């Protein structure tokens, strides 16, 4: 990770110095152990604050939306797929963006870290794939791969798909096929159990919208939750309103989601919102062979069709 950080600083500094980009979007060291803060470097000096480690959970493509200047952006595999999606959806142009590609070995799951520490984390260090967390109960050391977010453990595209200036050599992929075990387990339930499962899953949702705001796909000028004529969904904590929100959010991401996990990492209540978006991506893959953001040419699954798409359920 150290050389990732050093390389990112060097590349970003050079890009800013040369004037090739006006800003670089990256991360700076967080104020708490276990989290970093998205950061906009405007000068070569700023670039020296950039960092990279396994606590960069948010998707930086989210900060690229509608930017007008030339932007350098530090991007892991999933971020780069969202940059591709942004380009397809005209949020930015390809020419505007210089991707500083990070071959990604995954992000840690904030909850696994906390469980490991057994209490408040007072310090965290990461070196050569080993993570050490410190709490009042002492120090625990674990291999990073045992702490990965589930989307990272199941990742199929760890290396950036757009990679203008790689900050390191590609890393080997760790999976060859989707792991849909969790989703399949739900699919196997009875309708009543499915309903109850999600009722419980969403019961702590406060509608803070961290999931949608952390998502690079959610950039509509007026979100459906804010529409008033007609108003599709109430604004309180009614469970059906909560369910409506999550259902429509997942649907809006269908065929566009890269399973970056930012929504789940952002959720303060640790709700597994990826189960809904994941279901949509599973369907897109099974039905249309579609994975979002692998290039900047092909329209996403719901923005295209073939004459013979499956339709066994249509009378």
């Amino acid at each position: 990770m150290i050389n990732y950080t050093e390389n990112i600083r060097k590349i970003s500094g050079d890009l800013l110095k040369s004037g090739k980009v006006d800003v670089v979007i990256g991360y700076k060291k967080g104020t708490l152990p276990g989290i970093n803060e998205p950061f906009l470097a405007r000068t070569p000096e700023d670039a020296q604050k950039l960092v990279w480690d396994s606590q960069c959970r948010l998707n930086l493509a989210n900060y690229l939306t509608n930017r007008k200047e030339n932007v350098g952006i530090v991007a892991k595999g999933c971020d780069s797929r969202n940059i591709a999606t942004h380009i397809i959806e005209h949020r930015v142009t390809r020419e505007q963006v210089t991707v500083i590609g990070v071959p990604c070995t995954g992000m840690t799951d904030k909850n696994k870290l906390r469980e490991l520490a057994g209490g408040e984390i007072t310090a965290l260090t990461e070196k050569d794939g080993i993570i050490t967390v410190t709490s009042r109960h002492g120090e625990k050391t674990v291999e990073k791969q045992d702490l990965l977010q589930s989307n990272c453990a199941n990742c199929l595209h760890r290396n950036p798909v757009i990679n203008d200036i790689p900050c390191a050599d590609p890393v080997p992929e760790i999976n060859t096929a989707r792991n849909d075990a969790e989703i399949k387990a739900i699919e196997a339930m009875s309708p009543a159990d499915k309903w109850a499962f999600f009722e419980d899953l969403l019961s702590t949702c406060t509608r803070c919208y961290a999931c949608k705001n952390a998502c690079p796909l959610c950039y509509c000028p007026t979100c459906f939750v804010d529409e008033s004529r007609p108003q599709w969904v109430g604004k309180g904590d009614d469970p059906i309103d909560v369910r409506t929100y999550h259902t429509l959010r997942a649907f809006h991401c269908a065929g566009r989601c890269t399973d970056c996990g930012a929504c789940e990492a952002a959720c303060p209540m640790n709700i597994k919102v990826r189960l809904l978006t994941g279901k949509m991506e599973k369907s897109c893959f099974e039905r249309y062979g579609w994975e979002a953001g692998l290039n900047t040419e092909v329209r996403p699954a719901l923005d295209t069709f073939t004459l013979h798409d499956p339709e066994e359920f249509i009378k």
Partner: protein
Amino acid sequence: MKILHIDKASWDKGVLKSGETYRLTGPVKDKDTHAFKNLNDGELPDMGYVETKMSPKALLFPRSEVMLTYSTNPHDGNCNIMKEASKAYPPRAVIGIRPFDAKAIQLVKLNFDTEEYKDPYWLKAYEACTFVGLAINQPSITDFSTSCNTGPFDETGLDVLVVDTGHGFLAKILSTKGQAWADAAGFNIEAGADAASKITAMKKEAEANIVSKISVDKIAGKTVLELFDAGHWEDTAFGCINCGTCTFACPTCWCFDIQDETYGTQGVRIKNWDSCMTGLFTMHGSGHNPREYPYQRTRQRFMHKLKYFMDKYQEGIMCVGCGRCIKQCPANIDIREICNTMNQ
């Protein structure tokens, strides 16, 4: 001030007994965190809890609260006339509330209980409450409450302060309401003469364990416009995704929305939590938005907490240093850092 000694077994019994007179609310395990909930019969508050993700503000200011009801049925005598929703406010004991959260309620009171207008929903719920606080022996690394006119043993807004000494509880009675609750619980064994000094010592120790500090002295001396127009906001707010996590978790954030919901010909006017982080919050009917850009909303939040409130009420800042927003922010926006920037 009277201090009672309660051993742990008597505590459980007494709390349950007080449930005959009070509706009990306290911290209980809720999935991977704790939450303030109404306790079921026989259920005890978890006095070993560390923190609740959501502050207990919802006890007085629920996430969604029906205020008024109406009928749109023309055959109804009261068609289109708003009525106050009927609600009962039986006495409630809030057990285990943290001192900074109780302090926060006092700050929120400045908004809901004013000379000109009183929010009856908040105020009636407030008046029905007896706050039995639980001192914090081991502050979190994000706790900066002592910089916010409160602290781990602060008694402001509490009716009883309970201190967990390890072998039992010391309960400092702070008001007649607190005495009434202790009576209802049957707690009447006065602690020994050394109890007060024991509490003082524990308080000192807890305060000494606080590692986070902020300071607002220079903010106080600057004008609103100096702080507002400072050049740093776009960069300070860069990481902020403008979700409502901080505002919802915050014990002092009180902003709300009013919504009507009609079901057939019957309807309700509801007060819902709202957040200054959203664009819709300030959007004019014309489409003009005075806080069009996300950074302007982030700025509003911190200006409100650290400057506007201070200037308006002369009661310090609108923050009790509980640290929830710092821990829960998905983007690591840290109020301590922003306060430092503003206080330069």
